[in-house]
């Protein structure tokens, strides 16, 4: 068909209702709905900041069971930061999401929290690495994608400012993943104190060049733009978590915390920013979180890795975990000791042999001397010329 014909025919088709390109989003919708999606969320923070409760509140189901006392006591003596992954499949109106929640018990809980963010950072980078490797395989079907799409950092509401530990950890984490700072247990700060604290935290984040997740503000309609603006201005989000329902003074049943002096409601915007955060994570910005992870953070990782490594080469392993270093040291000392012991044994054996040899040599010498002595005696007797000796001359 010639170009002019094509244009004229398309014009006529446009007049009659289009060729149906506009149907593509519907097709996409069907495909995506069937495929479902994969979402990984990480929660980082000291113990007792309400991470478990928050996750359970967010998902309105007890995904993570709180630890019992005995295990908690044992964990305190453990002095390590663990990575626990909880998997769930959420389904709503025929759309399903494979959700992964990554928990980090032990973070910042000890007297010495040196480098406690390293396991977190390593985990994030390992997921990128896994994905990179899988992408480079000949058969790319069935890729397991555990890349972390959002990391919630729970800040203790101490009312003053960020702790040095928070600053260092957030810097390291924010450079690699979408970092969303969250003020935990916000029901311990009065509104004025909370506002001040939020401002201080943002000041520190700016001054220290900590990279946090910036949600896109501009959107097609005015309503969304305004909502996005609200969300961004509320950062860091002040959170109250509760997985149980209580009755307020005026008879409503809400999710909240029942105090003698009132009920702090989870879903009340005057009380906390839970709804805004939920909106960010799930209702409105989930796609943005996923795409920024893939397009920005993962890509950054990929670029830096590919610059320094050849295609298909495994990642050079860094041996930097302090605990392992200690174990390595102990193993090494044990090994050296064992070697020393064996060497000593051999040395002693050698000495014994030498001593034995010397003794035998001495004996031999003695015998030799004896023989010589006898020989000389014989000579002497032979030379003295007695008649009896004539016999020996032969």
């Amino acid at each position: 068909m010639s170009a002019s014909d094509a244009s004229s025919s398309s014009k006529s088709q446009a007049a009659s209702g289009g060729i149906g390109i506009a149907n593509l989003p519907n097709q996409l919708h069907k495909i995506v709905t069937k495929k479902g999606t994969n979402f990984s969320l990480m929660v980082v923070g000291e113990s007792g900041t309400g991470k478990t409760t928050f996750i359970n509140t967010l998902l309105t189901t007890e995904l993570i069971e709180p630890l019992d006392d005995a295990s908690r006591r044992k964990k305190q003596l453990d002095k390590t930061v663990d990575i626990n992954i909880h998997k769930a499949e959420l389904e709503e109106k025929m759309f399903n999401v494979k959700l992964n929640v990554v928990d980090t018990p032990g973070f910042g809980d000890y007297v010495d929290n040196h480098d406690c963010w390293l396991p977190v950072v390593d985990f994030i980078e390992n997921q990128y690495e896994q994905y990179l490797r899988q992408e480079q395989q000949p058969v790319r079907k069935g890729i397991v994608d555990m890349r972390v799409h959002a990391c919630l950092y729970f800040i203790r509401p101490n009312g003053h400012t960020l702790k040095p530990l928070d600053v260092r950890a957030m810097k390291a984490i924010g450079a690699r993943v979408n970092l969303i700072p969250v003020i935990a247990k916000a029901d311990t700060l009065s509104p004025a104190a909370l506002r001040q604290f939020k401002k201080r935290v943002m000041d520190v984040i700016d001054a220290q060049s900590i990279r946090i997740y910036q949600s896109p503000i501009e959107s097609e309609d005015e309503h969304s733009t305004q909502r996005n603006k609200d969300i961004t201005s509320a950062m860091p989000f002040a959170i109250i978590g509760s997985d149980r329902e209580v009755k307020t003074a005026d008879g409503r049943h809400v999710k909240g915390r029942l105090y003698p002096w009132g009920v702090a409601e989870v879903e009340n915007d005057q009380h906390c920013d839970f709804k805004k955060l939920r909106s960010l994570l799930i209702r409105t910005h989930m796609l943005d979180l996923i795409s920024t992870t893939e397009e920005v953070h993962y890509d950054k990782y990929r670029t830096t890795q590919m610059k320094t490594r050849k295609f298909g080469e495994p990642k050079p392993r860094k041996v930097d975990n302090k605990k392992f270093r200690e174990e390595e040291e102990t193993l090494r000392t044990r090994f050296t000791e064992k070697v020393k012991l064996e060497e000593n044994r051999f040395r002693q054996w050698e000495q014994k042999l030498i001593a034995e040899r010397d003794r035998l040599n001495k004996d031999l010498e003695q015998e030799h001397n004896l023989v010589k002595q006898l020989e000389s005696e014989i000579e002497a007797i032979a030379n003295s010329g007695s008649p009896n000796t004539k016999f020996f001359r032969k």
Partner: protein
Amino acid sequence: MKEGSGDDQNVAPSVYSHVSRPGSHRYKNAKKGLPFNIMLVGESGLGRTTFLNTLCERMVVTPNDGPNPEQAHIAEPMQFKHHTVEMEEDGMKIILNIIDTPGFGNGIDNESCFNQIQDYLEAQFDEVLAEENRIKRNTKFRDSRVHALIYFITPTGHSLREIDIELMKRLGNRTNVIPVIARSDSLTPRELVLFKQRIMNDIAAFDIPVFNFPDPEEEDDDENSEENAELRAMLPFAVVGCEEVVNEDGRPVRVRNYPWGVVQVDNDEHSDFDRLRYVLLNSHIGDLRDRTQNELYELYRTEKLSGNAMASADQQQQQQQPEQHQAALAAQPRSVVA
């Protein structure tokens, strides 16, 4: 101030009653004021400064906002800040010396904080020890031994953390450690009860020496034992601090205002602050001072003096040892060492 004089010990026991009786505080130094030294230890933001101001009922320390944002990644080292306030409690004058410890637990590695505090406590004991051994003693000697250490526990709602356990264990033998749950208005009543239980379980499990209102041996007073038992059941005290005072029915009431309600600091249902204050400045001030003098100081003294004796014996032994060692070496047949 004459400290450690025998007369005080005999007079002290009558102070224990919850209801103050006139003339019950028969300390000789009533006119000059009884010195009482408290140390406040806890991570920043747990309300130490607010507690201090609320305890003294005046703004002793203005809360500061923390370091510059550009400096936020540097941990400020722990400091000891001294404040002295004269108080009058039930007709008794108290010279309250409060030692605040800003910077505790703020760094990434907090191991050194414990040693600093321990050194401070022992230094005060050393001063008293030195003073006792002087030929000519100073009658105006100021006793700066810490009578009570208030340790602020973060309200995680779970149980004690490593830093809590370590601190209380290490310092429990040098001073009376009183653990309190800071910012307890972040816990619902149910959570608070569970939290207190778990903390007490941990304290028992890890063998942590805290001040648990011991009944003095000579005393048969049931009322006091009852009171002590009651206080023991309340441990650790849950405190809420605030500096805002509103007028309610004409009376000044200390409150914290939240969108969902108002916390009254003085209300026993809302916080144990009042009870703790009474214990510290009124009912058990004598107990705390006596225990510091009679048990903790004596323990330190014994350790220090016997430690000295042991140290000098060790030294003598070591001087003799080299000679013995040489002799032993000479006696052995020389072995060939490859």
